């Protein structure tokens, strides 16, 4: 069962792995995007994430449908967190399974690239000069 969700609590990579695993999948690739302690050379203390949740989930599903159309036998899942995150916490976890690793890597990479380009989620960075919206 693939799943595409927005959570306001800490993410669980195991839930995303389970969502794409099945007996025909020999390969699972999982990507975790975490809050770094710096960005563009400046120290970061926290990040606030905000989503237009219904559209974000719909857009994740549309991305997955597009990718699964081009890569048969691939299964995708993604969960993105919202709210206030500390350094080291996971903001997004996405995964792809496939019979073989080439397709799993390609699909996971394309999923996170498309998520960053299209899914209506925003972040406000708390740096040394106060908060500002990224993007």
């Amino acid at each position, binding site marked *: 069962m693939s799943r595409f969700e927005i959570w306001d609590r800490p993410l669980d990579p195991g839930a995303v792995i389970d969502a794409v695993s099945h007996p025909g999948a020999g390969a699972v690739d999982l990507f975790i*995007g975490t809050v770094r302690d710096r960005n563009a050379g400046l120290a970061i203390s926290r990040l606030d*994430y*905000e*989503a*237009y949740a*219904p*559209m*974000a989930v*719909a*857009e994740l599903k549309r991305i997955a449908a597009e990718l699964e159309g081009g890569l048969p036998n691939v299964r995708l899942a993604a969960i*993105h967190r919202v709210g206030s995150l500390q350094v080291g916490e996971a*903001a*997004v976890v996405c995964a792809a399974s496939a019979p073989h690793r080439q397709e799993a890597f390609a699909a996971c990479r394309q999923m*996170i690239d498309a*998520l*960053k*380009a*299209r*899914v*209506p*989620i*925003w*972040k*406000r960075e708390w740096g040394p000069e106060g908060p500002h*919206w*990224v*993007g």
Partner: protein
Amino acid sequence: MSAGTVQLFLFAGARECAGVGMIVLELSGDTTVANLSEALLHRFPALSSARNSLRFAVNGFYATPETPVRAGDEVAVIPPVAGG
């Protein structure tokens, strides 16, 4: 002719710039996203500097300036996204 209203949601920097997260706009005659965008910028001139970076969505799908808007639609102002 689409009379009635639409809800327009604002997010992130656009919400902070406008000072509100949702407004209700009256429709008069055939209306497109471009018309709503004009009305929005007229009401919140502070958004003008960001206007070229704003995208719009109608009922959860990205829209173009030509996309028609009808009574009851949910419209959203989408500033540059930064998920992940």
